[in-house]
C-alpha cells in the first residue's frame, strides 16, 4: 500500500471508532449490539439445537468469520446438530465440538460484559465522551488534510513536523498491526524521497481503467465528462475495486441512474460499500433529493467542530483544483441534514429534504445553523417577520456576530431610517471585506447625510447601491485590501497592548451576554453618556460602536479576568476599520469613561 492507501485506511478506522464511541451515549447503537448478542446467547442457552439456525456472520463481533478454520468447525458442528435434532440420528457431539461451542458462548458473554461496561462508563462520563469525540473529529480532519496534500500533484512540500506528529499517533496506537506500522514508516520515507527527487507519483489508476469501469456499468455520458474534467483528483483517489463494488451494488438495487452524475462519481471515488448499503437500507423509500447529495452516502461525522471551508482566496492558486469532488463528498452528514430539517421546521422555516426546499441551510453543519439562528434572533431579525418567508440561505453565513455588529456601526442595521440589512439579510453573504473597509472609510470621512447620500440607491429609498456589496465602481478600493487598510487605517494590534491575547480569548467565547455586565460602572457610564435613547450603538469619539459588541466582548474579557482600560478600549474598537483621528477620539472618550473606575494603570492583568 502507498501512503495514500495507508492514510485512507486509518481514516476509515477512525470513522468506525467515532461511530462506536458516538453510539455509546445515543439511543440504539451499542445497546442494539448488546441486545443482539444477548439474543444469540439466549438462543444457544435455551437449546444447543438453535445453533443450526444461526449463521457464521452472527458471530462477527467475537471472531474472524472469514477464517477458514472457524468456518470449517462451525459447519461441522451444525451438521452434527442437524443430524441429531432434525434427522434423529444416533450421534453425539464430540469433546472437541463441545469445546468449540463453549468457546463461542464464553466469548459472547465476555463481549456482552465488555460492551455493557464501556456503555455504562461513557453514560456516566458524558463530558469525557464529548471531548474524545471532538478530538477524534479533529484527528480525522487532520488526516483528510494530509491526504489532500499527499494526493495533490502540485504539492511538492515535504512531510513536516506537524505531519509527523499526526502519523506518530498511528505508529503508537497499540491497536494498529505491526505490519501497518512498518508499511507506514517505509512509505513516509519513500514519499519524502520522491519529493526530494521531484518525482511525486499520485495516480492510483489510469484513465483507461476508470473509463472502462464506468462503461462496464453503462453510466450516463455526463459521468464520463465529469471524469475528464476532474481527472487528476479521480485518478489520485479512486480505488477501482471499491468503486466497482459500489457501482455493482447501485446496479443491483436499480438506483445507479437515480443518482445525479456528480453524486455518482463522487461516491465512486470517495465512498465505501458499507456506508452506502447501510444508508440505503435505512430507508423504506429514498427521498429523491438525497440522490443529489453525495455526502449523505459517504462516511461523514455530525460535526461538533466545523470543518474549515476555505474561500477561494485562501486556496493555493493552481489551475488544478484537486479537491472539488472531496468538497462535495464532505458537504454535510446525513445526521446534520436531518437535525437541520427538524430544528428549522420546528421554528417555522420553509425547509424540506423530501421536497428539496431550503437546501442551502439544510446542507450546513448543524452547529452553524443553531448558532446562526440564535445570533440572528438576538439581533432582532425574526421580530415582526413571517418565518416561512425568511431567506434560510442566511444560515450558510459565517461570522454573523462580527458582521451584524459592523452593519450596526455602519448604520445599515437597527437604524429606523435605514434598516437595510433587516430587509436584505443576504448582505451577510454578499458583502465583501473590501466593502466593509470602504464603508468605514466613507462613514468617518462624511457627515451622516452625505454618507447615506453616497451609498443609497437613486431608485429606491432605504436601499443600497448594488456596487456597495461587491466594492465595485465608485466603491472600489483602488488597491488590494491589505494596502488600502495599511494606508488608511490604524492597526489595532499596534495600538493596544494585549490585543492579540484578547482576540484569542474572544475567539473561544459563546456570544451571549454575561450576567451583570450591564451593571458594570464603565458600561453604565457609556449608557448614560454615549447612547441616545435605545439606539443599538454608542457614539464614542464621534464614531458609532455596536452596543452588543461592547457588552459581549467586555463581558467575556472581564469574566476571564481582563478588566483594565485596554480591554475596555479593545471591546469598543475590535472589528472596526478606524482612521488615526477616529481612534484617537475614541480613546479619549474611553479614557474619560474609564477614569470613573477600574484599574488605574490602564493595563489589564489576568487575575
Amino acid at each position, binding site marked *: 500500500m502507498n501512503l495514500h492507501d495507508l492514510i485512507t485506511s486509518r481514516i476509515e478506522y477512525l470513522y468506525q471508532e467515532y461511530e462506536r464511541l458516538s453510539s455509546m451515549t445515543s439511543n440504539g447503537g451499542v445497546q442494539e449490539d448488546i441486545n443482539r448478542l444477548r439474543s444469540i446467547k439466549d438462543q444457544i442457552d435455551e437449546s444447543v439445537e438453535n445453533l443450526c439456525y444461526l449463521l457464521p456472520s452472527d458471530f462477527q463481533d467475537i471472531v474472524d468469520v472469514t477464517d477458514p478454520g472457524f468456518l470449517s468447525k462451525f459447519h461441522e458442528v451444525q451438521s452434527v446438530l442437524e443430524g441429531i435434532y432434525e434427522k434423529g440420528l444416533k450421534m453425539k457431539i464430540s469433546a472437541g465440538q463441545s469445546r468449540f461451542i463453549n468457546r463461542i458462548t464464553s466469548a459472547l458473554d465476555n463481549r456482552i460484559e465488555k460492551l455493557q461496561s464501556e456503555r455504562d462508563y461513557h453514560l456516566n462520563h458524558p463530558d469525557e465522551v464529548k471531548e474524545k469525540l471532538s478530538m477524534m473529529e479533529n484527528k480525522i480532519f487532520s488526516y483528510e488534510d494530509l491526504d489532500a496534500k499527499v494526493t495533490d500533484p502540485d504539492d511538492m512540500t515535504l512531510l513536516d513536523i506537524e505531519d509527523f506528529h499526526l502519523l506518530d499517533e498511528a505508529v503508537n496506537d497499540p491497536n494498529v498491526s505491526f505490519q501497518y506500522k512498518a508499511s507506514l514508516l517505509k512509505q513516509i520515507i519513500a514519499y519524502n524521497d520522491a519529493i526530494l527527487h521531484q518525482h511525486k507519483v499520485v495516480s492510483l489508476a489510469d484513465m483507461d481503467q476508470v473509463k472502462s469501469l464506468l462503461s462496464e456499468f453503462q453510466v450516463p455520458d*455526463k459521468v464520463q465528462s*465529469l471524469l475528464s*474534467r*476532474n481527472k487528476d483528483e479521480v485518478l489520485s483517489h479512486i480505488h477501482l475495486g471499491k468503486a466497482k463494488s459500489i457501482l455493482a451494488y447501485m446496479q443491483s438495487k436499480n438506483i445507479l441512474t437515480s443518482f*445525479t452524475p*456528480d453524486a455518482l*462519481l*463522487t461516491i465512486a471515488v470517495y465512498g465505501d460499500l458499507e456506508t452506502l448499503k447501510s444508508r440505503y437500507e435505512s430507508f423504506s423509500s429514498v427521498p429523491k433529493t438525497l440522490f*443529489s447529495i453525495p455526502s449523505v452516502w459517504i462516511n461523514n461525522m455530525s460535526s461538533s467542530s466545523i470543518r474549515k*471551508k*476555505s*474561500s*477561494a*482566496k485562501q486556496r493555493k492558486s493552481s489551475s488544478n*483544483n484537486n*479537491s*472539488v*469532488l472531496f*468538497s*462535495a463528498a464532505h*458537504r454535510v452528514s446525513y445526521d446534520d441534514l436531518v437535525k437541520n430539517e427538524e430544528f428549522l421546521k420546528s421554528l417555522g422555516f*420553509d425547509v424540506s429534504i423530501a*421536497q*428539496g*426546499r*431550503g*437546501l*442551502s441551510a439544510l*446542507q450546513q453543519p448543524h452547529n452553524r445553523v443553531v448558532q446562526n439562528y440564535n445570533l440572528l434572533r438576538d439581533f432582532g431579525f425574526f421580530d415582526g417577520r413571517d418565518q*416561512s*418567508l*425568511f*431567506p*434560510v*440561505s442566511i444560515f*450558510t453565513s459565517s461570522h454573523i456576530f462580527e458582521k451584524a455588529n459592523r452593519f450596526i456601526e455602519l448604520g445599515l442595521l437597527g437604524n429606523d431610517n435605514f434598516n437595510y440589512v433587516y*430587509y*436584505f*439579510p*443576504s*448582505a451577510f*453573504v*454578499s458583502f*465583501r471585506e473590501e466593502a466593509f473597509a470602504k464603508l468605514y472609510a466613507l462613514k468617518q470621512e462624511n457627515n451622516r447625510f452625505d454618507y447615506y447620500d453616497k451609498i443609497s*440607491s437613486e*431608485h*429606491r429609498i432605504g*436601499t443600497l447601491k*448594488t456596487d456597495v*456589496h*461587491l466594492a*465595485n465602481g465608485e466603491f472600489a478600493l483602488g488597491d488590494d485590501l491589505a494596502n488600502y487598510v495599511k494606508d488608511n487605517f490604524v492597526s489595532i494590534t499596534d495600538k493596544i497592548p494585549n490585543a492579540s491575547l484578547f482576540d484569542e480569548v474572544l475567539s473561544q467565547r459563546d456570544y451571549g451576554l454575561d450576567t451583570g455586565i450591564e451593571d458594570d460602572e464603565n458600561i453604565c457610564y457609556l449608557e448614560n453618556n454615549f447612547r441616545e435613547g435605545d439606539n443599538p450603538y454608542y457614539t464614542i469619539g464621534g464614531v458609532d460602536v455596536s452596543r452588543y459588541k461592547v457588552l459581549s466582548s467586555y463581558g467575556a474579557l472581564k469574566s476571564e479576568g481582563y478588566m483594565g482600560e485596554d480591554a475596555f478600549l479593545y471591546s469598543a474598537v475590535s472589528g472596526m476599520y478606524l482612521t488615526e483621528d477616529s481612534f484617537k477620539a475614541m480613546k479619549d472618550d474611553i479614557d474619560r469613561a474609564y477614569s470613573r473606575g477600574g484599574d488605574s494603570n490602564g493595563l489589564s492583568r489576568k487575575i
Partner: protein
Amino acid sequence: MDYLEKYNLSKDDILDIKESLNDDILSIFLLEDDKVISILDYFYSLGVVNIKEFILMKSTLFYENLDYIRERIEKSTIPKFELLIKENPGYLDFVGL
C-alpha cells in the same frame, strides 16, 4: 467554468467568481453545471443581465433546485418583482430566496 462565457463574462470575471465562492458553491459550479446553467438561463429570461453581480450577490441560490426557485418567485405578490430583481438581486430575500 468556461460555460459562464455565454453570459458575456470574461475570463477575468470567471476567475473573480471562482476566487469569491466558498468550496461548497464552487463545487456546485464545477460539478453541477447543468443545474447552474438552468438557473442562470431562468434569471436571464427574467431580464437579469449583470450575471456576474447576480452570482456574487446570490451565490447561495445555487444550492437550490430550479423548481423551488421558480415556485418562490411565481408565488410572489410583489408588483413588478422581475424588475426589482433585475435592479438588485437582493430583492430575492423578499421571497425567501
